[in-house]
């Protein structure tokens, strides 16, 4: 078991190293730089800026400097937010992003899964049709539409929730719904279909034949297996949600990390692009690991070292 974690950690570090390397060189290939301006900066000033940020050094040297910094979790200075480091920016963005992200993740799990189960147990009834209709709606309507409608209706017209920011408990309602809408729907559909499949299996029939109560059949025997695909989806989803959504944060004017993804690319703020990519990648890897651990908890036949039968 211990060697398994060592293997996983090494492979995670290697993956992050690969991602950092590829991103570093890809960024330098695209035209334009952090000091591209509509009104061009004089050459003498540009030289001075490049010297200051070591952008005049050979690319391989810049790459090694960056990687050296990365080892010590120093993600470098932002080229756009003068005087701020990428660490400053990520730390400033984490509280807001995490708060709405955690609430959204929680909502997805406590609403999406039960709704899916109910829908499966009541399959082909009015409840099922209604739930699946709502779920289809949730999957197809993009988050910016949900967000815009919430702001227009509940903040603008009715005045029930604040129009922007996260300055009161009510302010969380809009962004959390917009952020979780798609995944709630997806998770409930996934749970439903997976549950239906499991309920048709022989061992469930056997359990029922043995006279085990229906509640026990569903929650003890069926649900555990039905949740495996759901857990697979939820892990990476949490990583994505907790690193921020550009659209939702922009529309609700939330000072999180989501905006950095797009703005930093437009600004060619190399270090911020790198920092966000690595941060997301690391988060993703950790979540995938947690998913794997989750499998073994749900189904003891699944063993982490891969020697057991899946």
């Amino acid at each position, binding site marked *: 078991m211990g060697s398994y974690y060592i293997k996983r950690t090494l492979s995670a570090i290697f993956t992050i190293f690969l991602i950092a390397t590829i991103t570093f060189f890809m960024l330098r290939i695209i035209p334009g730089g952090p000091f591209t301006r509509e009104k061009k900066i004089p050459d*003498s000033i540009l030289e001075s800026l490049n010297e200051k940020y070591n952008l005049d050094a050979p690319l391989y040297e810049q790459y090694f400097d960056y990687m050296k910094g990365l080892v010590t979790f120093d993600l470098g200075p932002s080229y756009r937010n*003068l005087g701020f480091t990428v660490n400053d920016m990520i730390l400033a963005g984490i509280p807001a992003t995490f708060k709405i992200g955690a609430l959204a993740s929680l909502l997805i799990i406590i609403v999406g899964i039960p709704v899916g189960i109910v829908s499966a147990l009541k399959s082909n009834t009015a409840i099922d049709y209604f739930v699946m209709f709502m779920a289809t709606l949730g999957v197809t309507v993009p988050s910016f539409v949900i967000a815009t409608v919430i702001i227009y209706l509940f903040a603008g017209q009715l005045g029930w929730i604040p*129009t922007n920011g996260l300055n009161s408990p009510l302010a969380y309602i809009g962004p959390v719904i917009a952020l979780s809408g798609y995944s709630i729907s997806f998770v409930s559909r996934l749970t439903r279909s997976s549950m239906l499949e499991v309920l048709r299996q022989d061992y469930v029939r056997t359990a029922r034949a043995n006279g085990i109560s229906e509640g026990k059949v569903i929650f003890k025997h069926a649900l555990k297996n039905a949740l495996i695909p759901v857990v697979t989806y939820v892990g990476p989803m949490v990583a994505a949600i907790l690193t921020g959504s550009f659209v939702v944060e922009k529309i609700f004017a939330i000072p999180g990390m989501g905006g950095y993804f797009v703005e930093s690319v437009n600004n060619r703020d190399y270090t911020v692009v790198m920092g966000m990519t690595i941060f997301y990648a690391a988060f993703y890897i950790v979540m995938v690991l947690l998913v794997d651990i989750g499998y073994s908890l749900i189904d003891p036949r699944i063993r982490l070292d891969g020697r057991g039968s899946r």
Partner: protein
Amino acid sequence: MKKVLLLVLSLALALTLSACKTDDDGEEVVFNWNIGADPATLDPGLNGASDGGDVINNTFEGLVREINGEVLPGIAESWSTSSDGLTVTFNLRESNWSDGTPLTADDFVYSWLRAMDPTTASEYSWIWHYTNVVGAEDFVNGDGTKEDVGISAPDDYTFVVELLNPTDYFVSLMAFYHFMPVNQDAVEAGPDGTWAKDPEIYVSNGAFKLDSYSIGDGLVLVKNEEYWNVEEVGIDRIDAKFIDDESTAYTAFNAGDLDYIPSVPTAEVPILIAESDEFYVFPLLGTYYYSFNMDADGDGVNEGFAEDGLWSNRKLRTALNYAIDRDAITEALGAGQVSAGGFVPPGFMDHEGNDFFETAGTYGLVTDDGNFDEAVSLFADAASELGMSVSELQTALESEELLYNTSEGHQFVAQMVQESWQQVLGFTMPLANQDWAIFQDTRSQGDFSVARGGWLTDFMDPSGLLGIFKSDNSYNDPNYYNSEFDTLLTEASTTTDTATHFEKLYEAQEVFMTDFPIIPVYHYTDTMLVSDDLVGWGRSVLGTVDFTRATINRSE
């Protein structure tokens, strides 16, 4: 009994309400401002963006302050220009920094040299070229030293500037944020402009000072009690937000959460113009245009068809200019834009007090569809000059490309231009777009056929606009090389006589608009939505907002 109770209750209510009112009067005056994006910096010497400029204009005070075109004394109580126009002397008032220490002429010397110094790496340092300050441009470019810059402080309250040429707009330019003073101790305590976002070490000298700053969220400014003109400051506190989504800001404005938003969703503009008395449209001193690439082979000379391709032909460039219905475009854009008749927009007064734009006329460039016949005949002439039939020329133009940076607005204008050419001249030039940063590279490398351009000037003289098309200017995107035009602009900037200055500029625009290296489309406007509660606010003609003399009257 019930009636008595009712009476008592209503009396009590009335008393409570009136009590509230007295409370209100004693409360601090808070103004809710949406800045837009989170400014990259709030340091006057380092800033190069309009959002940062808006904040700085309210937190710092330069030698002068310009509000709605009027140049008012700032830290300079008065100023005088020598008879040869080459020395400007500012007499400073006794004033303090926000930390209570005195502000002297030496602070201006320090701030200016810092802004010019290449090691400071100030984005806007190119503007020193236009100030004509002796030695400034050389210092910026690393060709000179700070000792050779013509600025001095003979005593604490006298600041003297030496100019290379008489410069009419020099004093008004001093209202621009780049020339505002910064406090040496603060600057050194927080390098790279961090001091300007850190309330602990922040020092300013304007109407407001920084109270708090939160990345990506907002900032709070409070009245600076040390400001020399503090009696006129009506606002106690500014709660500023960084909401860059226009429709969110618009909803917040309508909900009463914001008093000022710098832009509104494009779709709302026509309704607001028609119905809202809180919506403002101001002319901006700039022009939206397309550049023809006149030097396809990139050898620095405008030659004929063999070397430089289609855009070497003046009649073709003119025909394409005449074939656009600019009024239709500005009408469709619907935010008060003015159809371009030349390159210089409305708003510049010449030596006789006439508007340059009005006086210059339109050089045969009719802004509506009235010149279409002329366009067709010029197009035919161009074809024969190029040794082609009209249909061959049409085919040739269909393999050229109209390039813009990716944006719905630019796409819209490009489509209208494309359609005009299709209808009037019978060819469809393909459209292409690129991400902003890539586009900047493509354009400056001359790797395009026809490309969008936009220019907003930073000082009150037409030379700031026409000057970008001089042969050696780095913004000369059409790669236009005409020595006659260059000479006229040089003469305009070196003359000691204001009348000659403007005559040369008129002549220069005449030459330019005969050659048509560009297609001027429209002159920009600036729009904003401002609550009726905010009174006494102003704006500089260059577009910076001013709340230093504003106050809030909340209507219940």
